[in-house]
């Protein structure tokens, strides 16, 4: 159901909802960027709509709400394990259409691939998703190429225009709260084109894995992992055991984000690393994003948010890499014919 209401009314509704939900949205953290006087836009708790950064794309995605950067799994003593408590409140998350598609990519890994992930599920089940529209494409976005520019799989859509708030609700609790508001059809803003257009090769022959194509990336990538950390669909983690005592019998086990670009990702206990070359790491990431994942789960993993291109300190463009790879695949096919 679509509604028109005011920011004051909406803030009051959120104040009420905040008794049961923590509200997360992209926020501007002034001066917290990589360099001095540069802001960072990332997810944080909000209490008022005015705190939400609607005008710009967030540097980091919403994924840290469902997959915290560092999450305690359980506490252990010599003979016992105690599962870490879930947050007492649920969560409401503001996010854009591409990210909402990203949620499905996370679901595939955490709810389907092998066992169900207890920690993800308990957060996921208590989270409501509020869509933020995109009036214009941002730099580096290629959602249209990935088919993620629209989504109706939301609990609500919300748009702020001055003092007016437009809401499309799929959530009974919100419908009830907005009962008195003017009803009106509300269609989410979405883009129809991006400056960046990406063509994905349907299959990449394995013979191209060793192509000199990747060497360029090997020379450029510094293995910082930023492209993975900002990505809403990268789901990798590593576990860490923390010991409170010298005898090593009591402590906690955490999981923290991991990146296939960063050193150590494939290292075995004895020290052997299966993918040391940074160009091969790029190949591995790219293939995961647009090819391997699809073979297993039916959709591409990448949702085209362009954050990896936004963040890479070495100006490596993932989008351009796919396009160049597509050209390489086509050229190789022609040569073989």
């Amino acid at each position: 159901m679509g509604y028109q209401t005011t920011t004051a009314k909406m803030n009051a509704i959120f104040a009420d909802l905040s008794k049961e939900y923590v509200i997360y949205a992209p926020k501007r953290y002034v001066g917290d960027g990589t360099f001095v006087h540069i802001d960072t836009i990332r997810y944080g708790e909000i209490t008022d709509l005015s705190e939400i950064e609607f005008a710009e794309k967030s540097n980091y995605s919403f994924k840290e709400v469902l997959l915290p950067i560092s999450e305690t799994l359980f506490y252990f003593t010599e003979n016992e394990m105690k599962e870490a408590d879930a947050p007492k409140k649920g969560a409401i998350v503001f996010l854009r259409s591409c990210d909402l598609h990203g949620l499905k990519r996370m679901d595939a890994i955490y709810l389907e691939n092998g066992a169900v992930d207890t920690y993800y599920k308990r957060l996921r089940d208590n989270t409501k998703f509020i869509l933020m529209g995109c009036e214009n494409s941002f730099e580096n976005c290629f959602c249209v190429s990935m088919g993620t520019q629209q989504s109706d799989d939301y609990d609500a859509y919300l748009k702020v225009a001055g003092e007016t708030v437009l809401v499309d609700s799929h959530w009974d609790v919100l419908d009830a709260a907005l009962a008195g508001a003017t009803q009106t059809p509300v269609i989410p803003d979405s883009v129809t084109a991006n400056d960046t257009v990406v063509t994905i090769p349907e299959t990449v022959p394995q013979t191209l894995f060793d192509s000199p194509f990747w060497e360029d990336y090997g020379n450029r990538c510094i293995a910082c992992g930023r492209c993975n950390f900002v990505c809403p669909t990268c789901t990798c983690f590593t576990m860490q055991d923390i010991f409170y005592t010298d005898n090593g019998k009591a402590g906690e086990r955490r999981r923290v984000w991991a990146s296939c670009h960063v050193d150590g990702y494939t290292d075995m206990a004895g020290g052997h690393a299966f993918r040391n070359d940074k160009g091969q790491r790029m190949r591995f990431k790219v293939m995961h994003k647009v090819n391997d994942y699809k073979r297993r789960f039916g959709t591409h993993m990448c949702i085209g948010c362009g954050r990896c291109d936004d963040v890479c300190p070495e100006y490596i463009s993932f989008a351009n890499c796919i396009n160049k790879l597509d050209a390489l695949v086509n050229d190789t096919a022609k040569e073989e014919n």
Partner: protein
Amino acid sequence: MLDLNTKKIKKNAYRVTKVRGETASRVRVPGGLLTAELLPLIQNIAETYGNGKIHLTTRQGFEIPGIKYTDIDAVNALLQPIIEKLNINQEIPGKGYTSAGTRNISACIGSNVCPFATYNTTNFAKKMEQEIFPNDLHFKVSFTGCANDCIKTRMHDFGIIGMTEPQYEKERCMGCQACVKACKKKSVDALSVENYRIVRNTEKCVGCGECVINCPTRAWTRSPETYYRLVIMGRTGKRNPRLAEDFLVWATEDAIIKIIKNTYGFVTNYIDREAPGGKEHIGYIIDRTGFSEFKKWALDGVELDSRTIVKGPIYWGGIHYD
């Protein structure tokens, strides 16, 4: 038949050059950053009154050589819009630079461009300009964005090196150690790992911000306040060239401004009037009076932040030719 008061000319930022009859005009650019619109004005002076050449000085100014002493008034008129645009304190409008003792305040490019910078060096340089100019005493002050010290503050009487106090949000940390490696390889190895979390050795940390720059998840961010290391009494010259030593670490902007202004009082009080040209350099004055006397004057009425560390007594090294 030139009849000149060279003292007045020098004070007006013109040089008594080796070429008889010719002077050179020095155009100071506080903080070294100017709008491009001023360049044609400088070009015009060089082409109309100079020999068509411009020298870029070490202290971030333009030296326009080949000017006839007789054209000084005309040049001053052309300098006026430049002086105004650069917002330079001027006692008598239209008379050019009315004082040339305290040298141009120079600054590295800082946060305007440089990824390592911890603050806007130009802005602080301009602020300092407002506080200490015009002045006849020979002071060299410079600002640098970070501990790399590209402007070489350690060769100045007062060098201001930016510092940030890294803020650590442990819940955003993955223990990837990008910060630890950066600090070890590019800075002072002040970070270590304990239970997959990072511990900063606050004694060792120089506030360069390498950890902040290299953290991929914003676990490290900069403190809202900028801090500074104030290094003092570096110099070049014939007798005892030497690098400046730390005076304050984790100092604030206000403290630094007040200390430098206090030092003008100290120099005025102790300067050797018999020195050649009545000029004695601060460093040599402190060598005479002793560090503790300087410190008493410098810190008079200065409010120090709880974080600020005051060093001393300071012993300078350098090469002694005297």
